[in-house]
């Protein structure tokens, strides 16, 4: 195995509980996005496009969909002879096994994996964000600054800064102070959760942290503050561009809507920086003589006979005649029968809305909540749904029966 300049470690074990029904049955990085993708396509495609060919994906929560999706990584050109993608779940050791206790612990438990490639640096990523970023530029910056650690930062509005980990830097991008979710932020440089560490340095800190009983074994809480306290060379790498955390139903919905329009901030049509994904073999979608489509994204295999407006449709969606799909995200294989109305809704995979059903929350003071429907549901004709619904098989009447 010859030496790698950089190995990426992608933290994909989080539950993403704030996404509610969307992550009830699968891990957050596997949540579908943008009419075709899953969230994890973004960091994995960034890796490929940045020339990083060795990626460890740390999984823990409901990994089935995620594992089968990653497979051997061929969708992202990461099925390589030397390197490639590796799925790394927690495992049992001589002294017994344990779950990943935190982000730092997850890396520490897999230090033997990283050592196999003997890299100079390790890139830590998370599977929670929608963005396009050239990691090779950040790596160049890290090497030029001879940093022990480089943290990618983005400018956020000052009034939102207290939701993030905030950096204070001197004029050479050296980090002098780091606060996790500060009440009174001193700057608006937020950590993007993307780190490059010099591997020998990180390894030392990880093993020390492992022995510390009081530690939460988290990069933001424990490792970075400890390195700062030791006056290590920590640098902030400024990133400009679209970057969106899709941690909540609202931000997830918004990030999907952000793709619409003439010139969205995130361009998915750039052939120089493609976002790779699995490509289901589906024909071009068909729009009938009665179809009316406005400002929307529509994937292959769809059959559109009704109206679609400001919406994102995944593959194989059927929209019947007279149906109105508005401000909605419709997952693959969903079946919207005639005269159904959806407004600000997220309809799960293969869910069937029988004719005349209305899925929309009531408007209160001009505000409308997002209604989320689970996967594999069957909603009887002429039902009105104003709040999110999930289904738990087998006894639930709203669940599809096994055929």
């Amino acid at each position, binding site marked *: 195995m010859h030496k790698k300049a950089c190995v990426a470690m992608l933290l994909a074990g989080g539950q993403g509980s704030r996404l509610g029904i969307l992550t009830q049955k699968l891990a957050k990085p596997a949540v579908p996005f943008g*009419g*075709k993708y899953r969230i994890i396509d973004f960091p994995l495609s960034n890796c490929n496009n940045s020339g990083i060919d060795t990626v460890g994906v740390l999984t823990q929560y409901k990994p089935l969909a995620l594992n089968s999706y990653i497979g051997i990584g061929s969708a992202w050109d990461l099925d390589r002879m030397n390197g490639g993608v590796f799925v790394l779940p927690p495992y049992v050791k001589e002294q017994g096994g344990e779950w990943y206790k935190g982000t730092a612990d997850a890396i520490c438990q897999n230090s033997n994996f990283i050592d196999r490639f003997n890299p100079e640096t390790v890139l830590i990523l998370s599977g929670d964000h929608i963005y396009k970023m050239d990691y090779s530029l950040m790596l160049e910056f890290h090497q030029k600054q001879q940093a022990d650690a480089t943290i990618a930062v983005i400018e956020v509005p000052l009034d939102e800064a207290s939701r993030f980990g905030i950096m204070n830097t001197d004029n050479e991008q050296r980090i002098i102070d780091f606060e996790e979710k500060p009440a009174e932020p001193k700057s608006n440089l937020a950590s993007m959760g993307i780190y490059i560490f010099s591997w020998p340095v990180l390894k030392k800190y990880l093993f020390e942290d492992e022995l510390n009983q009081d530690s939460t074994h988290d990069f933001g809480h424990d490792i970075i503050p400890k390195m700062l306290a030791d006056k290590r060379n920590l640098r902030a790498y400024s990133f400009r561009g679209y970057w969106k955390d899709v941690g909540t139903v609202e931000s997830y919905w918004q990030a999907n809507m952000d793709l619409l329009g003439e010139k969205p901030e995130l361009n998915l*049509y750039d052939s120089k920086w493609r976002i790779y994904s699995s490509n289901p073999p589906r024909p*071009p979608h*068909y729009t009938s*003589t009665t179809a009316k489509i406005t*400002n929307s*994204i*529509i994937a292959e295999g769809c059959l559109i006979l009704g109206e679609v407006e400001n919406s994102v449709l995944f593959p194989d969606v059927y929209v019947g005649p007279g149906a109105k799909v508005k401000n909605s995200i419709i997952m693959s294989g969903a079946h919207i029968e005639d005269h159904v109305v959806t407004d600000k809704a997220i309809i799960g995979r293969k869910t069937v809305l029988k004719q005349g059903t209305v899925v929309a929350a009531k408007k209160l003071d001009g505000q409308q909540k997002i209604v989320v429907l689970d996967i594999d549901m069957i909603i009887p004709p002429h039902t009105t749904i104003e709040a999110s619904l999930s289904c738990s098989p087998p006894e639930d009447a709203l669940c599809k029966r096994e055929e």
Partner: protein
Amino acid sequence: MIDLMGIINLNEAEEHLGELSRSRSLASIPFAGRYRLIDFVLSNMVNSEISNVGIFIQHKYRSLVDHLRSGKDWDLARKRDGLFVLPPAYTRTPMQVHRGDVENLYSNLDYIYQSRQKYVIIAGANIVSNMDYRVILEYHKNTEADITVLYTKANCGTHDCVRSNILGLSPEGRVLTISEFKDTGGYQNMSIDMFIMKKDLLIDLVNQCIARGDYDFVKHCIIKNVKKLKVYGYHHPGYAARISSLQSYFQHSMELLNPHIWKELFFKSGLIYTKVKDEAPAKYIHETEVTNSLIASGCYVEGKVENSILFRGVKVLKGAYIKNSVIMQKGNIGPGVILENVICDKDVHITANKQLKGEYSYPLVIKKGRVI
């Protein structure tokens, strides 16, 4: 595991497709918004559990080889069996002049010998359909035929049957005659030039043909032997489009706008695979009028599209109006352009406010890469 191997014999006359086949073989002509013609027969084979497919190519195969690569997109990149692309080895033919497809089969006879399957299906790439060859193999075994020929009831009154072979059948389905289509309309038993037989018989037929100095597989190996061998016809009841001319290409493209045909062709007994492109889903801007059309991924639609097919990555800008047309990959249709009955080959750029019009019976073809 099915005891059947596939041979795709690319011997169709492509000159009748004009500009579309100028730099490519018929097999790699783009069709249906994201496919090439060969995808249909190849996917049918894969969906019928055939794992050993030999593609006998003749000439102009750069785009085809680029399309197929390792066969991975059809799940045919295998350790055992898989996809074999077999060009002619002219040195093994007498006089080193290439006259027909039998010579190609003959020069690659080793491949056929070495294949471990007992039965073989031989097909061309000019038929667009979705069929399960397992059913046909069963039929072939049940009738104890030497050769089974697939045919469809083609309406030669409205469709192009020119240069096709018409079967004369006995009531129990035995093929009595095979003759070239004469200019008579109505429904005909049109051969779709797919044959199932034992591999050993194929090898015998090829050797016989070569020994006699013959060179055309269908004419000399099959038709000459109709009386001698037990040849049966199998009627394919579903959709089968024969692409043999520019008119039939255009006509069958427009048929895809019928959702019943769309569903049958793309979903019935299996999905149709093609080389993947990693395009984002299609995007509609503002108020668009897109009716009765097929829109592939990566498209960007601002204008009006009616009764048309847009391939992957096509851009239709503001005020453009596309009617009864086929726009192939990466076409860029500028603002205010009006197109009717036009086929744009790949990478065509029509600049602002141009108006181009063909006839439904004679569509206007814009050459690959042209800027107008």
